[in-house]
């Protein structure tokens, strides 16, 4: 892996990066209108692709929270036109490593020892890059370990990074600044949690132990080593397995894909309804697949704790039959903050049927009890709906944010889960095994 040292950290440097992107995006609009004046009908797709490429190029040179924000936006595909989403999805795989001497320094400040003194062996180069850290391979007492090291100054730069993403996010999401702040405070909170390796370690141990105790078939976790972890270091077992793309390239049988898909679904079902906290970062890099149909889960950096009232409103809405009961449905729309008393009659008339359509579509796997995620028709419908929402002038002109701030990560989680299951083409049982059962803590 080639080391890249140029991470612009100064706010000015970052700002100038975004500035050039702003100029480029502006240029893309110009090109778009030029094409339009020549062809009469220039595809908006080309424009979106150009914009996404330039925004992505910028973000991929940044580390930390800007990259995280890009990842988050990329997961929330239903909020973004397809071209943006595809480009942002690439950001999930890129982040340049930091120098080995800095890794040594991080170890010295955590343990007073160099990595080679802590472990029997330790790889000088990162074997894997995560968005706010990098992974080194180590050996201790004949055991292969993965050691995650966080970049310095990440926590410090979260807030200033988000401020920089703001103009772009505002433009893409097109909501008022006060609504935007509400969402951004949620994102900031999650990102700050993600830089807290003590919290991550605690949650990793807690969730993995709960899932193992429950005996969900086909899920495995690395063992975590608190004594070899610190502020900016987490040590865990090295998990063998393939990344999604490699795994799919081996042409796994339908039965295996179903088994893994089911394990994945049950894992989320259990977290959501029993633990009331979920691994909210279901992008392919956080899962390792094995040919025997089992699944390793390796990163609990982003965990969303589900508040009780939000949980109740969200899942009451995702109950079969609710959408056919206009009165109950409208009441739940208010509770889920899709519409509010501040909305005009015209807005209510516009948004109630729209949300009925969105929930009806996105909730399909919940309502169905059994669902074939390999069905391309479902995803085509989702894309078509999101494109039509994006292109709907009335929707775009309404600059009110809709949906509770908690839904940001919950939707992202479910949508990421859908995408994974879609790639797996898994046909699985989706009725909940845990919903409505007693919580056991």
């Amino acid at each position: 892996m080639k080391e890249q040292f140029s991470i612009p950290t100064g706010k000015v440097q970052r700002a100038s990066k975004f500035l050039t992107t702003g100029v480029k995006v502006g240029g893309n609009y110009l090109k778009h209108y030029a094409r339009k004046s020549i062809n009469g009908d220039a595809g908006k797709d080309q424009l979106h692709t150009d914009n996404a490429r330039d925004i992505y190029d910028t973000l991929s040179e940044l580390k930390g929270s800007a990259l995280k924000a890009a990842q988050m936006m990329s997961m929330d595909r239903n909020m973004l036109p397809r071209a943006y989403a595809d480009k942002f999805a690439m950001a999930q795989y890129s982040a340049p490593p930091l120098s080995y001497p800095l890794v040594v320094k991080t170890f010295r400040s955590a343990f007073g020892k160099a990595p080679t003194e802590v472990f029997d062996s330790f790889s000088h180069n990162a074997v894997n890059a995560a968005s706010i850290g990098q992974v080194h391979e180590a050996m201790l007492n004949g055991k292969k370990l993965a050691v995650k090291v966080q970049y310095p100054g990440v926590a410090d730069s979260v807030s200033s990074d988000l401020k920089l993403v703001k103009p772009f996010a505002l433009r893409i999401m097109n909501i008022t600044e006060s609504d935007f702040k509400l969402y951004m405070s949620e994102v900031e909170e999650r990102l700050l949690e993600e830089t807290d390796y003590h919290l991550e370690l605690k949650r990793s141990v807690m969730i993995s132990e709960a899932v193992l105790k429950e005996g969900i078939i086909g899920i495995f976790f690395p063992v975590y080593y608190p004594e070899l972890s610190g502020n900016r270091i987490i040590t865990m077992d090295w998990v063998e397995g393939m990344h999604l793309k490699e795994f799919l390239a081996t042409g796994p049988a339908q039965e295996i894909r179903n088994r893994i898909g089911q394990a994945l679904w049950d894992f989320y079902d259990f977290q959501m309804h029993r633990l009331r906290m979920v691994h909210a970062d279901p992008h392919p890099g956080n899962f390792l697949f094995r040919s025997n149909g089992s699944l390793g889960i390796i990163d609990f950096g982003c965990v969303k704790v589900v508040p009780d009232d939000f949980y109740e409103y969200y899942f009451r809405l995702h109950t079969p039959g609710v959408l056919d009961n206009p009165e109950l449905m409208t009441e739940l729309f208010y509770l889920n903050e899709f519409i509010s008393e501040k909305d005009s009659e015209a807005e209510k008339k516009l948004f109630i049927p729209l949300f009925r359509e969105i929930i009806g579509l996105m909730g399909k796997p919940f309502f169905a009890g059994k669902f074939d995620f390999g069905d391309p028709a479902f995803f085509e419908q989702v894309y078509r709906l999101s494109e039509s929402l994006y292109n709907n002038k009335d929707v775009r002109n309404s600059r009110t944010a809709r949906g509770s701030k908690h839904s940001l990560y919950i939707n992202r989680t479910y949508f990421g889960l859908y995408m994974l299951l879609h790639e797996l083409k898994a046909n699985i049982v989706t009725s909940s095994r845990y919903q409505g059962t007693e919580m056991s803590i």
Partner: protein
Amino acid sequence: MATKTKKNKPENPERDLQATITDAYIEFYLNKGKKPASVYEFTGKLKMEEKDFYQFFGSFEGLEKSIWAGFINTTLETLSDSEEYESYPVKQKLLSFYYTLAEVLKSKRSFILLSTEKEAELLKNHTLSKARDVFQAFVSQLLQEGTESGEIVKRPYITDRYPEVLWLQLLFVLRFWIKDESAGFEKTDAAIEKAVKVSFDLMGPGAVDSLIDMVRFLYHNR
């Protein structure tokens, strides 16, 4: 610093005495916020004779020079204690130097802040002259090693200036660290990564050579 010296050279009482004087001076400075009024007063407090002081230093200024040179020396000693260090490419060696130096300086941060606050020009003036000599000897060696390994390109006239340029880089890092308020001085870490990256980009093969080549071409052909 003092303990390190003791550990490495246990049967050298002179160095012990020198370290004792140095530590006492720093302590005096930290407690009083200024230099002792005279060597006489200072050695009196240490219950030693004034001439013992002159055995090592000509003045307090000389003492401060030696403190700064000591920071660099301690850093280099720490580096040579590390088995891994020898196997590093030159760029990583310089990075290690800075990270180690930052650790060494951390234990004397109060003194550094206090003494640089009192004399804003300190970082420019000759207090650092001894430190500079030690550092430049170190980087000259690094540069030679880097030239042999191909990490650094030999360029007429320019190559000779590298030790000075790298000294300016060290001053940059030092000033950045003095003003750094981030927890664990993490921002200084980032500054070091960037500064070293830039210097090696410039000293290594690439853009600079193409530029020189083009300038030379234009000079001969216009």
